[in-house]
Structures are given as structure tokens and as C-alpha cells.
């Protein structure tokens, strides 16, 4: 029981140190404990690695969220992605309807107008009709 209490106190001091909130006096006392006890050193590394690993884990989740690969908060992500999917669908539909009406609006008057004389254009050439060709003169 006494041992457990001591360990809890040590954990508390180690956490305070790792959080940067340990007093100068406590830091000196902790230094002595670390110098003397391999058990304290072991506990130090166990807690320090939690700090490092949790930070790394949370940062990588944040990075994934910022690069858009994955959202940081899963519950929010589900809601947001559901909403955004609906929004994207509606926006897509609206764009589709709009584009179709624009195309239809331009196409309809053109359909009523008389067709240009394609034949004339096709039959027209770039040659000078007044010029006598070499073949003709022969």
C-alpha cells in the first residue's frame, strides 16, 4: 500500500516535470532520485515515451486531417462527410440542369434559323477563277 502511494507520487512528479510545471526544488529532488534508482529511470522512460508517442499520434492524425486524407475527429467526420456528399450531389445536379438549359437555349433558336448554304462554301475554292491553268493552255 505504502509502495503504491510512493509510486503514485513519483508518477505525479514525473508528469509535472514532463509538463514543464515542476518547481526548482522538486526538480532537484527528482534528479537525485533518477541518479540513484534504476527503477525511477525505468518509470521515467515509460511515462516520457507516452508523452512523445501520444503527441506523435495526435499530430499525425492532425496532419492527415489537414492534408484532407482523413478527418481528425471521426464522429464529426461522419456527419460532415455525409452532409458534404449531399451538398456535392445537389450542386452537381444544379450545374447539370443549368448547363443543359444553356445548351438548349442556344441550340433552339439555331434550329429555327435557315441552314447556311453549305454547298456553296464547299464548292468554293481558293483558286483564282480568272487565271488560266497550265493544263487548259496546253
Amino acid at each position, binding site marked *: 500500500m505504502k509502495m503504491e502511494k510512493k509510486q503514485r507520487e513519483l508518477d505525479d512528479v514525473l*508528469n509535472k516535470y514532463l*509538463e*514543464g*510545471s515542476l518547481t526548482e526544488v522538486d526538480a532537484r529532488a527528482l*534528479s537525485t532520485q*533518477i541518479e540513484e534508482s534504476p527503477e525511477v529511470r525505468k518509470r521515467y522512460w515509460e511515462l516520457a515515451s*507516452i508523452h512523445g508517442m*501520444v503527441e506523435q499520434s*495526435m*499530430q499525425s492524425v492532425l496532419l492527415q486531417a489537414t492534408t484532407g486524407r482523413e478527418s481528425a475527429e471521426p464522429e464529426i467526420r461522419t456527419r460532415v462527410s455525409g452532409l458534404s456528399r449531399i451538398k456535392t450531389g445537389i450542386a452537381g445536379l444544379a450545374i447539370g440542369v443549368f448547363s443543359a438549359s444553356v445548351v438548349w437555349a442556344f441550340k433552339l433558336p439555331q434550329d429555327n434559323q435557315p441552314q447556311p448554304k453549305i454547298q456553296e462554301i464547299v464548292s468554293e475554292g481558293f483558286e483564282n477563277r480568272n487565271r488560266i491553268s497550265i493544263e487548259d493552255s496546253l
Partner: protein
Amino acid sequence: MKMLFGHSFELCSLLYPMPMMSLQETFLTVSRKASSFEIGTNFTAWACGIARLKVLENFRQTKRANVLSEKAIIALTEDVPSPESFKEREQALEKCIAKLPSKLRDLLWRRYSRRQTSDEMAEALGMTSNAVRVALSRSRVGLRDCINLQLKETTGI
């Protein structure tokens, strides 16, 4: 050498919890002084020695001195767990984070991702700063115990 450098630097940041700015400054100083390192001596202790000076400099500016003694740092660098052991713990961590109550996960998220202070978290969640600190401390201890238990189960020791 590259791996050793990265690993040592990570370890130094665990030995000296420091603000991001002084972490970057320390990294630059260690990189610049890399040529003065004597091969065959303890690289981690050497790199952390430089980190210690940087941290002390930072503490002098902020008028704080809650830093471990040089002797304690050397003792810690001699007992550094292997990179493999860190890897094992890292793998076990994910499962343990998932086991935490959502309130504690939220606190960890705010602390490590949003980098909120205890006061900021307390204000946002309607708690006292002390309650936030205690909860954070408990969640870290809980994670450590969970990881130790998982490793015990997998290795059967």
C-alpha cells in the same frame, strides 16, 4: 548515423520537455556541432548536453529552472530503451488510446494536437485547471499501465 541522430534528438526532447521554438534551435545547434562529436563516446548524452544548455538558456529568459541535473540526464541516457522497445510500445498505444473514455481522449487531443493549455481546456470544458491536469496525468498513467499489460500479454512475461 542519420538514424542515431534522429533517435537521440527524439530522446533529448523527452528528457527536456521544451517549447517548439527551443526544440528547433536545439536541433540546429546539434546539427551545426555534429562535427565536434568524438566517435566512440555517448552520442545521446552529447546531443542531450547541448539540449540541456539550450533549455537552461530558455529557462534563464523565462526565469524558470525546473531542469534535471546533468548527472541525472547522463544516468537516463545510459538507460535509454531500445528503438525496438519504443516501436513495440507505439504499436500497443493505439489500442490503449481506443480504450480510454472519450472525455480523456478529448483532453489528450486538445493537449497534444491543439496544444491547448490546462487553463484553456478548463475554460472550454467547464472544469478547473487542476482537474484538467489531474485527468491528463491519470490518462497518461492509464496508458502506460495498459501498454505494460499488453506487452506482458504478448511476450508472456
